[in-house]
């Protein structure tokens, strides 16, 4: 067993990349120039870590992780010292009610709430459900309106399971929220979670006889920028979309990409028209097209996409970037980060114009979350 990690040495203003893998979690930190990365880990060796988050609201840095394994299940842990110690092992706060007939398989998303509500948090879990905490993560309860949704019996798991991977609270209206899950698609509430309706108009479901059902789409990720509160971008299981009306309708924006299949998606921290994706060849061959590892960037909200290749392997690169393995930091120019199933992590400190490999040889990367420490 590897030596116990000591916690990240990162300080206020540094950048922290939390990397979850199939066999543990790793923390990478750097000064704001993002030129020299220090690794700490593995945390939870042997455990899969699909969800991590750094919550810096209120000026403290609380690191969250959801390690688990197929034997003994998933739990939610918290560190107040950047991974030197973790609390919560003796608790199991994320539980379905026994009468629901459901049991927690995996936590896919940890989403701190808005800055003005520092005790509010959400989780997206498998089987698909939204959990909410109003006490800073000490206790959790499923959002009843979603748990008891009339469509639940007709939602079916994709290859990754019936997973809720995206949680987007509206930037200006606390009653409105969107979630996305595979398969089911995008659902929204306008009444604080009491009722939920599908929001998939225009999104294809290539794997169903009816290509445009009300719900049942295999949405892989939805990305959002709070400065443009009605706009969203969506990476589908085949399909790349934008909505300008808070998911009431979606338009195809796969303009100039080698494939509109992919998983990860992130919006630039300071430009809501700039979005990053990593296209994959197909659902049958989930690898980078032409064996070239290319991040694609649009600067005009999907009107056109350009490949970013400087520093990325352009030969024999059969890589896969999964849905939560692409993220941005909040600095300017922006840091952009992604991890691959082959265990590589790449970083850009110039909006994606050029890239460096942070590390290779990790277990398969399933989660990359970048943050600037408070």
């Amino acid at each position, binding site marked *: 067993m590897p030596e116990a990690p000591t916690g990240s040495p990162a300080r206020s203003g540094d950048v922290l990349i939390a990397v979850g893998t199939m066999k543990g979690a790793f923390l990478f930190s750097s000064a704001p120039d993002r030129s020299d990365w220090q690794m700490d880990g593995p945390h939870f060796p042997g455990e899969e870590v699909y969800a991590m988050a750094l919550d810096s609201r209120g000026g403290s840095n609380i690191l969250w992780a959801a390690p688990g*394994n*197929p*034997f*003994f*299940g998933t739990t939610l842990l918290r560190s107040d010292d950047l991974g030197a110690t973790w609390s919560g*092992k*003796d*608790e*199991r706060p994320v*539980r*379905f*009610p*026994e009468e*629901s*007939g*459901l*049991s*927690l398989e995996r936590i896919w998303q940890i989403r701190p709430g808005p800055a003005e509500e520092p005790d509010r948090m959400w989780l997206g879990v498998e089987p698909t459900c939204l959990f909410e905490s109003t006490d800073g993560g000490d206790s959790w309860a499923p959002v009843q309106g979603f748990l008891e949704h009339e469509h639940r019996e007709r939602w079916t798991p994709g290859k990754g399971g019936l997973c809720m991977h995206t949680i987007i609270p509206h930037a200006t209206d606390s009653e409105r929220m969107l979630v996305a899950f595979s398969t089911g698609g995008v659902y929204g509430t306008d009444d604080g979670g009491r009722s939920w309706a599908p929001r998939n108009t225009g999104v294809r479901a290539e794997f169903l006889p009816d290509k445009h059902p009300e719900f049942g789409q295999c949405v892989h990720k939805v990305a959002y920028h709070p400065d443009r509160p009605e706009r969203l971008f969506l990476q589908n299981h085949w399909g790349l979309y934008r909505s300008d009306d808070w998911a009431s309708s979606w338009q195809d924006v796969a303009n100039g990409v080698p494939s509109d299949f992919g998983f990860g998606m992130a919006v630039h921290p300071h430009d809501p028209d700039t979005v990053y994706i990593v296209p994959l060849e197909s659902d049958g061959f989930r690898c980078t097209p032409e064996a070239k590892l290319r991040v694609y960037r649009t600067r005009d909200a999907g009107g056109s996409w350009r490949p970013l290749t400087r520093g990325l392997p352009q030969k024999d690169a059969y890589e896969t970037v999964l849905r939560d393995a692409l993220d941005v930091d909040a600095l300017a120019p922006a840091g952009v980060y992604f991890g691959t199933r082959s265990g590589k992590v790449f970083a850009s400190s110039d909006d994606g114009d050029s890239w460096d490999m942070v590390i290779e040889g990790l277990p398969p990367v399933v989660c990359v979350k970048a943050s600037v420490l408070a």
Partner: protein
Amino acid sequence: MDLPLEMSGGGDEGVVVLLPGQLRDLTGGEARVHVDEPADTVGALFQLLRATHPAVYDRIFTERREVRPHVNVFVDGADIRWVGGLETPVRPRSEVVVIPAVSGG
């Protein structure tokens, strides 16, 4: 899996539950948990364990109070899935062993 070569039972009336390495950080490093209260079945035994070691119970059981699919429980050497499930009888000095199944990569 570092099970002892020779496994001993609990006290005169008690039952010992042997836990795998992955769960021992929940017991202060102890591989064995003694349940001294009487229980007729392994299901009742685990409910007693739940009272003293809730985190261990939650790792072995789902919210539906079912043994997790990739966890095997043996009573005196017999896999409970084939001899009565949670109704499998336990006796004083029975040995209950929890072992993760061989699966995954």
